[in-house]
């Protein structure tokens, strides 16, 4: 299968003043198949948003991104920064943001903001841009689309605004849409509608979707592949059914244990929680970064970083003890 993104060893570094360096993303590999949905899951501070912003070249000014190889939408990039990625940003790769309340500029109409993207990248014909905007507003299920074009963002509800954002992302027929927690700020019924919409859109247009979330309910709903991210690394990767059904990494298991969704957990079990917090970005440990919070951590875990080990050709994880039978003495 051809890939819309193939990235090896992506790293993001933010140098601090006192010669220290923050490393929010520490060598992740990212492969997104054409027309598939990849979910990047992780708690706050795990680096998932940083990784996605690196794909657009929109990191904070002080941060730098490097990678061994960086192939996006069929092109290979030597450097990963704002300038280099300007040619694909907005056209081949579109982004949907978390907050529909603030992601539209309040002083322009919905129509002019939609047309802007088209006029910027495709052609300068305002009439064709308007036709395209109208078509997409209808496609994302906004009734009375014609009247909506001349409305301002404050006249629309959160769910409608997120639909507008989806329409805006589709304006240039992108090959990849990055959605950074697009449903987090919506209420539950709207969440489901927006998820359904994204799934339909993705099926109809054959667009690939990189979906960033911390919600396993959302993951089970929309994903083809799942990447679980922890402390700047991907700790488990595989097809959604395998990762959710048979998680290999203790972090994935712990996360799944926190999900209050009935069909994902045994009846009558208590909701879990993970003690502690994500390790500080300064002074990230050399050994397994989850060892300080892992209930099954042993002496090996605080000595060495776990290698990437395949359980089957499509499913791997980074845990010393992911294979049953590979047991070492518990840490004392």
């Amino acid at each position, binding site marked *: 299968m051809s890939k819309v993104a193939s990235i090896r060893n992506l790293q993001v570094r933010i140098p601090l003043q006192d010669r220290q360096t923050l490393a929010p993303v520490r060598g992740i590999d990212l492969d997104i198949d054409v027309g598939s949905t990849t979910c990047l899951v992780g708690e706050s501070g795990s680096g998932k948003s940083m990784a996605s912003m690196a794909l657009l070249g929109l990191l904070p000014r002080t941060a730098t991104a490097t990678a061994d190889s960086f192939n996006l939408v069929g092109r290979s990039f030597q450097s990963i920064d704002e300038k280099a990625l300007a040619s694909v940003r907005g056209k081949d790769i579109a982004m949907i943001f978390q907050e529909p309340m603030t992601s539209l*500029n309040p002083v322009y109409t919905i129509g002019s903001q939609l047309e802007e993207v088209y006029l910027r990248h495709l052609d300068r014909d305002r009439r064709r841009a308007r036709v395209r905007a109208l078509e997409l507003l209808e496609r994302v299920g906004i009734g009375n689309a014609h009247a909506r074009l001349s409305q301002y963002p404050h006249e629309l509800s959160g769910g409608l605004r997120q639909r507008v954002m989806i329409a805006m992302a589709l304006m240039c027929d992108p090959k990849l849409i990055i959605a950074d927690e697009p449903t987090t700020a919506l209420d539950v019924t709207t969440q489901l509608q927006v998820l359904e919409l994204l799934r339909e859109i993705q099926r109809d247009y054959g667009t690939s979707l990189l979906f960033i979330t911390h919600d396993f309910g959302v993951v089970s709903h929309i994903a083809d592949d799942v990447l679980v991210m922890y402390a700047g690394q991907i700790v488990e990767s595989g097809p959604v059914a395998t990762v959710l059904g048979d998680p290999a990494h203790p972090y994935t298991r712990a996360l799944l244990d926190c999900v209050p969704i009935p069909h994902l957990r045994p009846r009558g079990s208590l909701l879990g929680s993970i003690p502690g917090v994500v390790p500080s970005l300064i002074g990230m440990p050399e050994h397994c970064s989850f060892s300080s919070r892992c209930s099954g951590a042993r002496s090996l875990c605080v000595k060495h970083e776990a290698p990437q080990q395949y359980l089957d050709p499509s499913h791997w994880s980074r845990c010393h003890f992911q294979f049953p039978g590979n047991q070492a003495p518990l840490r004392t």
Partner: protein
Amino acid sequence: MSLTRTFASILHIPRPISGAWNRAWQHKGLFFGAVFTIFFIAVALLAPYLSPYDPYAQSLVDRRIGPIWHMWAGDDARASWAHVFGTDKFGRDYLTRLLYGARISLFIGVTAAVISGIIGSTLGLLAGYFGGRVDACISFLIQFRLSIPVILIALAVVALFGSSLKIVILVIGLLVWDRFAVVVRSATMQIRSMEYISAAQAIGCSVPHILFREILPNAFPAIIVIATIEMANAILLEAALSFLGLGVPAPLPSWGLMISEAKVELFFAPWMIVIPGACLFLLVLAINLLGDGMRDFTAALRKT
């Protein structure tokens, strides 16, 4: 209510949050400020139609005619409705000069506010958006500007280039941009953290586009408020400079110049100093009320 609605739709003003027009109407400061400001603007624009006289035409036979209340009191046989506020020592109709003076004050106020607004807003946008070294440089520039006494600079400039309307406008416009810069800088810092700015970056907008098309319109409420206050400031500054003889040259009918020329006659014709003073007071008060009202009003809108 329906009238304001109609106006709004004619002018294509975006439909405000419901009741906004109503509340604007009820804000007394905003109301009186707007009414008086519009009154002065109307007077300035319609001056040639409101008065049959030329503000520069001197007439030796009509010198020092008293105002209309001297006719009522029987003090001055020459006082009549022909010259409501009388004439000055050159026989020029005083009311006419006042009307034309509104033009000069407003013209200076608007142009100086526009010039300083453009300079200050640009600096503020750059400082707020880029931060870091750019911000440090521009903040230093603001501090530097604040340490310069405006009157002293004006004195030096007039001594070097002589006085003219153009020079007064430039001196004021090029010197009072600091408040714009400070306010726009902080507004920009707040706006640039909004997701629509990230969204604009994500669709591939250039930096000038983001600065001037995405951020600037959102900072506009703050800029308008500062602009009214700076306008009032510029008008006062012009009057002060003219009073000191550093402002617009005679025979332009500037209010400050009229006050300055009338000060020698303070004990014989006090109205000649009181009337332009009162006009200046009213205009500056009105513009300040308008600015304050708009500030309250935009803050209230933001809260809802």
